[in-house]
């Protein structure tokens, strides 16, 4: 039996980085405890919830995390909870646990963006792989979010004119064309362009284009 992913997470935990947290929503107390034991045995943190509202009413962890959810839950079903989370802007990757013969439900869940699907009873490695995959995904998402918010901070340092110039540059216009569009001299455009490249920390035109795409900056249409 390979224990690779588990050990990797464990080491990560020991290195002082915030250890990943698995959020478990399962109404069956015994199974909840079993999952907790498994996750803790590989060094993951685990928060247990008996129902969906219980989770919504508690503080969610900062670090990478994912959700392990029973598809048949009392009060609010797993599927409805998935929808609720989406509406609340919580984008945790979800791994559904399902009983036998829940195929229509599974299809719905996958369409709504579930990461993985495990049919009970499942092996520990299956759920650990699924959880690690989900945590990786969450890490990437968090990285993307972080990078984006940095860019947004930088973007706020630009003057309105610089922003305009950035938008035209990103769409591939040459300085001369931009000057024509903004009714400025070509030299002025050049100065703006140099400043904004510096402020945004873009070393090449390609960098700037990527940033504009991430920030969804487009040239104003005429």
């Amino acid at each position, binding site marked *: 039996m390979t*224990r690779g992913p*588990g050990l990797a997470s464990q080491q990560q935990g020991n290195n002082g980085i915030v250890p990943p947290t698995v959020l478990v929503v399962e*109404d*069956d107390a*015994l*199974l909840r*405890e*079993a*999952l907790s*034991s*498994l996750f*803790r*045995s*590989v060094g993951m943190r685990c928060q247990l919830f008996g129902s969906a509202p219980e989770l919504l009413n508690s503080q969610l962890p900062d670090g990478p995390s994912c959700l392990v959810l029973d598809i*048949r*839950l*009392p*009060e*609010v*079903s797993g599927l409805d909870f998935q929808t609720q989370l989406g509406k609340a802007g919580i984008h945790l990757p979800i791994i559904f*646990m399902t*009983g*036998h*013969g*829940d195929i229509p439900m599974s299809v719905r869940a996958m369409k709504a963006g579930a990461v993985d699907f495990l049919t*009970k*009873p*499942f*092996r*520990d490695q299956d*759920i650990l792989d699924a959880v690690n995959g989900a945590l990786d995904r969450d890490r990437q998402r968090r990285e993307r979010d972080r990078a984006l918010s940095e860019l947004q901070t930088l973007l706020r340092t630009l003057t309105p004119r610089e922003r305009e110039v950035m938008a035209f540059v990103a769409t591939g216009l040459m300085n001369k064309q931009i000057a024509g569009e903004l009714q400025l001299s070509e030299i002025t455009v050049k100065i703006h362009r140099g400043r904004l490249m510096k402020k945004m920390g873009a070393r090449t035109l390609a960098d700037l284009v990527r940033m504009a795409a991430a920030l969804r900056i487009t040239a104003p249409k005429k």
Partner: protein
Amino acid sequence: MRHRLSPRASGNSRLLAPLAILLAAGIFAVDTIDQFSGDVSVLYVVVPLLGAGALRRRGIVLSSLACIALTLLSFWLVHGIDASGGALSRCLMSIAAIAITTLLVLKNQATSTDLSEKAQLLDLTHDAIFVRGMDDLVTYWNRGAEAIYGWSAEYAAGKSTHQLLRTVFPASLYEINQELLRSDRWEGELVHTKQDGSAIVVSSRWSLKKDADGKPLAVLETNTDISQRRQAEVEVLKAQADLAHVTRLTTLGELTASIAHEVNQPLAGIVLNSEACLRWVDRDKPDLDEVRSAVRRSIADAQRASDIVRRIRSLAKKGDIEMSLVDLNDIVNESLVLVRRELITNRIALKLNLANRPMPALGDRIQLQQLLINLLINGIQAMTSSDNDLREIIVTTSIDESNQANVRVQDSGPGIDPDSAQQLFKAFFTTKANGIGMGLSICRSIVEAHGGRVWVVPNPGRGAILQFSLPRVEKDAES
């Protein structure tokens, strides 16, 4: 004191008529030849007495008139017309004696005819009727008793009924006799053994006969053979049990998804706990506390799984009805094991208001569980087919003033309209698109087989309330 109430024509009666004629002729001869005949003619009274055994009313009257005529004839032959005063008065005395005897005989015969007709009526009935003295010895045994039990009246006479019929009593004979002496009657079911050795169940009614001072004299026992009825009842019960079994399987079929979940859950727990356990052991520093708690959880899960499998097996099993003392609160809890997941899946809240005292009842555990499961599923299905926001099932158990154990299942579905309420428990009545209408009709037969009843409690504008009651059994009754 033995009095046969059913006289039979015996061989003797046919000899009586010629004997009477012979006697009359003899008396006439002596009376006519003898000079002191006036005394002899009194003997004519024997003729109507003899005739009473053989002749009807008219015959007796005619024979008496003949005797009087013979008396007068011999008086005329002996004394002629001018008889002495003494002879005449003796003759008149004789005639008077014959007339009085005849009247008495007629009256007596009327009474005994009446009695024998009544006795014949008793013989017409198919019931076994017998009279036994306070010493239990048979003094009367009708033809019905002969037919049912096989013993003739002659054989049964003077025998003890309880020994002859090997009576099995529903209570001790002492208690039954106390009841009989107290209220002059007793009714109940007895098991009797016939002459051919086979046993029959009889519905028995005893009446006490007393003398003028109220001293008990005899017991009149009337027994109706209800073996066939009992047999039919047993067959109905068996058919009902078969049907209950089939619908139970159907119900289990409906619950498949929930049951699979209930079994999978602990299995998943066992797998996860065991694997977590290995990981805790394989660590650089094995964590034995974690190992222990994981193993404990595995054990608990394994027990849970086997408990559920046992529940399902017992429901799926086709068994005879086994009446035992059960607690209805337990039945409710046991039934919920299989329905719990169904409630969760349909997001129905469950409220349990169980009586905080034992609710002992006599019943078949499996059938009562089936009853509860059916009522619960009925409620669940009623709610899932409606868009009501409030989804709850309330199960209440209580004991009412008349000492009945009540179980009530209330849902928050669309309710039952009064027209349907009448038919709800009939077979094949259903309000569901794909229902076969067996669920509640089986509920009714189960409840009725347990001596209880099930009904709809009116709850206008709100959810449906179905309630059943069973006779409560005192726990002491068992010991």
